[in-house]
């Protein structure tokens, strides 16, 4: 789509991600053995034909910059525009909220880009987005801003909209956990660029850091903005804690959910790896698992999600584990309910058990 630009907030880090968030932001979390969470935002834009995208990052962005490979996986290498990493200014403190992050790029938003419409979204949303439908609905309804929401339950805290009789939101309730309150915002919005600039200008005039709690509430209550509500069909999760990550990952072992998140018609693109197919030895026993290419598997693997380049040697038993790139599990080890980060080395015979409610994380480069 011409004249539409994407802005992805990829700077968010969450203390509840523990060691998983030590080297990377939530947007950079590996997912489903193949992807990073930001692939959903980028692919959603790509599938709607939006190729001009700013990605706001502040700290721990190396994983993301590597992953972008210039934007090629999402057709975002362009002579003008394309995928545009926006790193914070050197003297900028930690962003207190999305409005502060937008203010940091306000000159860019006001003077350097020409796009009429902006889609703002988070990089840690796990959902296959139909942004074309969102934008069409926005244009048709005459709303000032349109929110993508879900009417299905979703774990965690969310901003909820209460739909009014005219189809627009009549109220916004911030950070609620109840599932019976209105509809939950996926924090994906479309609006005209001038409207976004109005929000940024108002926010910069005071200590107004937050998109929902400050700017959106103000626009709605004081400026009479009409907030359109568009329902997202299908799976959606926001990943902010280790438990979110663990649960969402295992939900993908239900095949219907997997095909719901990865439908043929809206593919999720990601960085290419020159991997071979995965090799299963004659002693491997693998059930109910998702396995990326480039692995060598000789042990027993049950209910696991295995990223590329992983080696699982013989007589290893793994249950309910998530294993990230290039990790090696040596002979005879027994693991259950463990998240192994990248480049981990689990030595022979080691036994390690977490629990479904308290998964253990082996941090990156860990040697156990």
């Amino acid at each position, binding site marked *: 789509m011409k004249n539409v630009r994407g802005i992805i907030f990829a700077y968010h880090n969450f203390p509840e991600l523990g060691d998983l968030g030590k080297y990377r932001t939530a947007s950079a979390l590996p997912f489903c053995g193949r992807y990073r969470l930001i692939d959903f935002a980028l692919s959603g834009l790509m599938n709607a034909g939006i190729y001009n995208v700013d990605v706001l990052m502040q700290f721990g962005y190396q994983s993301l910059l590597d992953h972008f490979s210039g934007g090629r996986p999402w057709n975002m290498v362009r002579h003008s525009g394309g995928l545009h990493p926006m790193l914070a200014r050197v003297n900028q403190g930690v962003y207190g909220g999305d409005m502060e992050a937008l203010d940091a790029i306000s000159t860019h938003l006001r003077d350097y880009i020409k796009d009429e419409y902006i889609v703002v979204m988070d990089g840690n949303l796990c959902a296959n987005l139909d942004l074309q439908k969102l934008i069409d609905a926005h244009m048709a309804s005459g709303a000032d801003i349109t929110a993508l929401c879900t009417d299905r339950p979703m774990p965690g805290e969310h901003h909820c909209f209460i739909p009014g009789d005219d189809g627009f939101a009549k109220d916004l309730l911030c950070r609620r956990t109840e599932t019976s309150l209105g509809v939950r915002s996926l924090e994906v919005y479309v609006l005209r660029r001038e409207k976004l600039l109005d929000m940024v200008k108002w926010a910069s005039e005071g200590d107004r850091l937050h998109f929902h709690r400050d700017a959106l509430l103000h626009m709605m209550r004081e400026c009479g903005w009409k907030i359109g509500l568009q329902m997202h069909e299908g799976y959606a999760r926001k990943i902010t804690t280790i438990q979110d990550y663990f649960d969402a990952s295992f939900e993908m072992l239900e095949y219907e959910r997997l095909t719901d998140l990865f439908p043929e018609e809206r593919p999720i693109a990601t960085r290419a790896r020159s991997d071979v197919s995965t090799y*299963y*030895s004659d002693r*491997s026993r*693998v059930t109910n698992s*998702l*396995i*990326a290419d*480039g692995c060598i598997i000789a042990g027993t693997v049950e209910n696991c999600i295995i990223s590329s380049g992983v080696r699982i040697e013989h007589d290893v038993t793994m249950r309910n584990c998530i294993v990230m790139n290039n990790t090696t599990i040596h002979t005879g080890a027994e693991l259950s309910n463990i998240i192994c980060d990248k480049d981990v080395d689990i030595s022979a015979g080691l036994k390690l058990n977490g629990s479904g409610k308290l998964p253990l994380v082996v941090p990156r480069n860990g040697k156990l």
Partner: protein
Amino acid sequence: MKKQCIAMLLAGGQGSRLYALTRDMAKPGIPFGGKYRIIDFPLSNCINSGIDTVGVLTQYKPLQLNSYIGSGGAWDLDASGGGAFVLPPYQTGETGQWFAGTADAIYQNIGFVDIYDPEYVVILSGDHIYKMDYADMLAVHKKNDAACTIAVLRVSMQEATRFGIMTLGEDGSIIKFTEKPKEPDSDLASMGIYIFDWKKLRRFLIDDAADTNSSHDFGKNIIPNMLNAGERMYPYQFEGYWRDVGTIDSYWDANMDMLSPTLVNTFDRSWPIMANSPRKVPQYIGPKASVAHSIITEGCEILGTVENSVLSSSVVVEEGATVRYSTILPGARICPGAVVEYAIVGENTVVSAGSHIGAPPDGTEKWGVATVGPNLKLPENGVVPAASMIYTEEEVSV
């Protein structure tokens, strides 16, 4: 832009002995070893050897091959000033003609090679599975100050009758080259990989084009003509895995070889074999699946049994289906109760419920691998016996 060395990859072959697989696609474009297509091996060897300019000569059913190669980016062959170029036959003035032979294909593209004004040209074919450092071969070529260097490997004397065979003189140079000799006097077989001094090759190609009796073939014409003219020609001895996959049996064998990672180590990151793979979800292995001694690729959904087999991307093996000692090409579906053994199943073919494809070796001469062509929907409970090759649904007995 001047290059020291470029490669020309002969990818026009029809592959008539693989007919069910090559009816709609040139042989180099056939999927192989799970993730790959045959042409991935020479293309990856080029970039790994530091050759960044490759002309790919296509002729037979090139559509899928052209779109597969695309800009060459999958193999990092998209640098400015070089890259991968698909070179089909073209019209010149009032005439235009198909490539009459391997040498004619290069002759008709002299203009392309001249753009790069190279000192050396590597000639490759698109139907071999191997990993080779052409830079090492080029170093030997330079050291010998040769006009032509031919990669060779040792074969048994029985096999020698199927190859171009070289006899060496005392100084190690090639003194005799015989195409498929009835009584070979050497076990050094040509692998169809040549490095030429471009100026010399250019002259021989022009002379050969004018010769109306020539079949315009490297093995039959150019190499013997250069030898007769007294040019310096040397062998380059190759050690390692190399397979011609021109027949159903050799194609199936080479796929099974991929199950022995020590034979073709594609896991070696220092010499990656790259592919232009579709992006798919990781492979899903279901709760009742059984997978052993196999290669499986992303996008696959395995709910049944897979043993000793090589599965390309997006293959579905449904619950109660069994795949043994087989190669299943991208997008094929094996339905419940079907058994596929010692077989090759083509792209996007549906092996319907209760079908039985292929049979284990019975020790007789007649036995062979069963082949089912692409884009078919076999009838339920259909039987495809060993050694048969099926490329329409009607051929399947129920």
